[in-house]
């Protein structure tokens, strides 16, 4: 089964024991979503945490957890509630796995907007790993303009590289560029460094770029 963005787990990566665990766990989840409360945290111990060959950025425990979520028999709002509950009681690794599975769950489980509450929760944290995982294709498709801009600015603040943020090509509007310009100005006035990720967004909007360049000229 190939579902968008959740990697196939090459059979050679799992031990026989790990592979049996995953099969059984998926069957149990298909029959009863409640089984996830014990199975979801155990994925790393049962199947390992190494990289998934050919899938940069994915670890085995994450991919296994994504498989378990895709086995859920639920859809829409009901699926959203289960995901939020798992996320809310999850440790950092479990939360990352839920966030990274959202695009696949949207395709496979008709999630719609029902995954947004946990994306918003992750964006309120100060954990750069969660913020980065939240800013995947699901957020790019579902966040309001205002929330998306705020999240992108937060990424620049806390050091999440914008290369890891989905949807910038179509969602970088003039208002976001204005916010970035103000941020750059604030930094320049304080004599602090402007994070390099600010410039590509500004370059899409020449008037704003001119303003900042003028400011840099004055400082000199």
């Amino acid at each position: 089964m190939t579902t968008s963005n959740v990697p196939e787990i090459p059979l050679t990566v799992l031990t026989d024991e790990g592979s049996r665990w995953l099969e059984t766990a998926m069957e149990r989840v298909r029959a009863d979503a409640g089984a996830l409360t014990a199975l979801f945290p155990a994925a790393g111990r049962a199947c390992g945490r190494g990289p998934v060959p050919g899938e940069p950025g994915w670890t085995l425990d994450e991919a296994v957890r994504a498989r378990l979520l895709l086995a859920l028999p639920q859809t829409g709002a009901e699926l959203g509630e289960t995901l939020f509950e798992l996320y809310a009681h999850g440790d950092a690794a479990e939360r990352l796995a839920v966030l990274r599975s959202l695009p696949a769950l949207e395709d496979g489980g008709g999630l719609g907007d029902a995954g947004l509450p946990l994306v918003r929760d992750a964006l309120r944290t100060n954990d750069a790993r969660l913020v980065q995982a939240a800013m995947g294709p699901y957020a790019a498709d579902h966040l309001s303009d205002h929330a998306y801009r705020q999240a992108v600015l937060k990424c620049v603040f806390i050091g999440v590289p914008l290369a890891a943020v989905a949807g910038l090509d179509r969602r970088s509007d003039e208002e976001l560029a204005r916010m970035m310009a103000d941020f750059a100005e604030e930094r320049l006035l304080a004599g602090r460094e402007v994070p390099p990720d600010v410039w590509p967004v500004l370059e899409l909007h020449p008037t704003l770029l001119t303003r900042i360049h003028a400011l840099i000229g004055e400082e000199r």
Partner: protein
Amino acid sequence: MRIFDPHIHMTSRTTDDYERMRAAGVLAVVEPAFWLGQPRTSPASFADYFDGLLGWEPYRAAQFGVVHHCTIALNPKEANDPRLQGVLDLLPRYLAKDRVVAVGEVGYDEITPAEDEALTRQLALAVEHGLPVLVHTPHRDKAAGTRRTIDVVRESGLPPERVLIDHLNEMTVGMVADSGCWMGFSVYPDTKMDVDRMVTILGEHGLDRVLVNSAADWGRSDPLKTRAVGDAMLAAGFSEADVDTVLWANPVAFYGQSGRLDLSSIPAELTTAHVTTAATAAVAAGGDYAGNTVLRGSPA
């Protein structure tokens, strides 16, 4: 000197402490769930606290190069509040987490029936989840409370080598040594145990099954007391290997019994310098997960 503080409440400490601890050689900590000074009134507050011990706190520690694990339990003091009985029902969910290396702190505070019930149920949970147990001994009536703790642990069927009995002093160390359980000492600025008494006890009882911690929290306490004990041991004639046994190998061996202790993010040059069998085994048990080293937030 590499140091593993097996009992410290980092939630109550500042980032300055993390920096100072790392500079003093503290590479790893275990933060036991305990009370927060202000009593909690609902299980939901505990869920948030446990989530913090598994989420924000290890993340924060990693920024300063310190590996953070935790123990999860309903503490004896709050076990007396009937509104918090629901916390016991939350526990199985949290005891399933990767970074939970023991059930704890459990034990006695006022030695009440409610504390008995909470202790017994949590010892059973430890058996069920294959986890060791960190047991707190009471501040008041310590000797009687410790004796009773040892009896209850024995009845639980947990092997003594999976039990750490903490906050010991001259009156209680002997009975715990005889029980086969691990012996924990909390070195405080004023109370419980001080640096010189600690070194004397190490001289009398040996290093076997002994753990030294700072138990630093929101009260008068000092997260560098583990280092102070290491320095005092050297000054008293103990070898560097002795210090490494007490401050590193022993806590790694005790919590390593969980199979969940993961020290793989500690740079190799810091762990291979004095590799011990126990440490190697624990790292192997924890696998090679590098979650603590990736995507550290850079200061804005």
